[in-house]
């Protein structure tokens, strides 16, 4: 009898454990499935134009002479825009977060917070409109360009979109820094600014880094704004004032009209795979950094 009931309990334990494990593994399964799906559609490309066709500096998938499927210009476009946007969003996002959590008085915070949240809620198409009609022409006249639709315009708008994320997550991180750390610092004679820079920000750094990584993730995956304002010229360049074309914009623009099963079709899946690898890499780096700083 007793033995039986123990056995039943063990069995129950095992069943519950299996169910929980299954639920927890779903996300792994989905990631794997997405990779498999992307891979399946991309594989034919390996035999026909050959995988080395991807390492090309030109992307001309539709041509009467010779099709070119080089993803390098798309890669450089995405990286350039993301890099620039990150440069803009770090100071704005982090300084705003510090101001909101450490310096602002209650009434200031009550005005600022809703506007930041509002900014996060603006549809990307509307931001794209703003870029086309306002920011683009400004950039064009400031730098004396032929077109204002370039990497810089895109990066500024993407930073604008990512900043609310960076602010709210960084602010949370800073708010979670124990009050006792600040008190200890102030009681040793440190000023408010010294306390912020030497204690609060370092203690909140993992959260701030996570915030920046999430902001970058948002930027590199964003499609609509870059489609509208970066000019969509697949050029390999590091010049912020050149028009570029990102990986996301390419997929979004071409997937709708590509011949199913063609080399062009498979090439677009390769673009997708690289995009996924980049975001995965970003996440892994973010987690590494988080782990490293959490201990200290």
């Amino acid at each position: 009898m007793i033995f039986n009931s123990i056995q039943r309990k063990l069995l129950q334990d095992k069943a519950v454990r299996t169910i929980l494990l299954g639920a927890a593994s779903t996300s792994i399964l989905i990631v794997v499935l997405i990779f498999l799906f992307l891979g399946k559609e991309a594989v034919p490309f390996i035999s026909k134009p050959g995988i080395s066709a991807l390492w090309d500096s030109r992307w001309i998938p539709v041509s009467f002479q010779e099709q070119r499927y080089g993803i390098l210009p798309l890669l450089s476009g995405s990286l350039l825009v993301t890099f620039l946007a990150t440069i803009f969003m770090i100071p704005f996002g982090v300084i705003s977060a510090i101001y909101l959590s450490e310096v602002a008085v209650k009434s200031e915070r009550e005005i600022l917070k809703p506007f930041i949240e509002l900014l996060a809620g603006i549809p990307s198409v509307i931001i794209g409109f703003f870029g086309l009609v306002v920011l683009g022409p400004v950039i064009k006249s400031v730098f004396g360009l032929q077109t204002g639709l370039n990497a810089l315009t895109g990066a500024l708008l993407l930073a604008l979109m990512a900043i609310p994320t960076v602010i709210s997550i960084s602010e949370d991180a800073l708010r979670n820094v124990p009050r006792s750390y600040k008190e200890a610092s102030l009681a040793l004679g440190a000023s408010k600014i010294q306390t912020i820079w030497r204690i609060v920000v370092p203690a909140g750094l993992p959260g701030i880094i996570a915030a920046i990584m999430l902001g970058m993730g948002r930027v590199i995956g964003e499609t609509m704004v870059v489609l509208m304002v970066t000019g969509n010229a697949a050029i390999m360049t590091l010049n912020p004032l050149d028009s570029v074309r990102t990986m996301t914009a390419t997929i979004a623009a071409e997937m709708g009209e590509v011949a199913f099963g063609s080399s062009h079709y498979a090439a677009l899946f390769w673009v997708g795979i690289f995009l996924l690898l980049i975001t995965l890499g970003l996440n892994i780096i973010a987690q590494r950094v988080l782990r490293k700083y959490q201990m200290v």
Partner: protein
Amino acid sequence: MVMSPQTPTKIETLGLEVFYDTQQALFGIDTVIPSNQVTALIGPSGCGKSTYLRSLNRMNDIIENTQVKGIVKIDGTDIYTNGTDLADLRRRVGMVFQKSNPFPKSIYENVVYGPKIHGVKDRQTLDELVETSLIGAGLWSEVKDRLDKSALELSGGQQQRLCIARALAVEPEILLMDEPASALDPKSTARIEDLIGELRVNYTIVIVTHNMQQAARVSDFTAFFYEGHLIEFGDTQTIFTKPLNQQTEDYITGRFG
């Protein structure tokens, strides 16, 4: 009400009143804290003893809408005048908190934090400060081989002694302690109490405690606070054996609190 001790005065308060918003936390506190002695502040929760302690290094300033009236003199100088250098005041008046609060940095970095804030850059001076401060806090022998390890790896009692070392590193004259042993086990508490006995040679110590025996064990003078008023102040022996005030006697004998 105030019995004037026979030793030189370090801290003096005159008509000290503290308000949080509209709520008054301290009412006309007159005290004379003697130099190089341990003064214990006792009283039930919410009686104002922590508020009093925090007004001695102006830590009440960081709480929004706090108002302080009256005079607090340290070595005869009012610390609430406009010209007061807060950084220097807090260097001279160190503080140890109820819950040990080492920074999430290495043991070494915790100790040198204060000196660095006050402009000490020389590596050798910092090294010496770390050693003397940790020796002063009775922690050196336990941590000297792992100064670069995280302070958060230390035990609770060690963390609190590190906080004391951190406070000592800026070479203060006064140490304010807000229930420094209340979160510790009996053995660690005993270590802290022994330490307080050693520190009184070089520092003026004001300690808030909930523990009556602790006050009796470690202090030379005792102040009893009740509902924001200073009820009685005198040498510890008198307060604990023949208090002048009925409320003091009731509290000490455990009739309320």
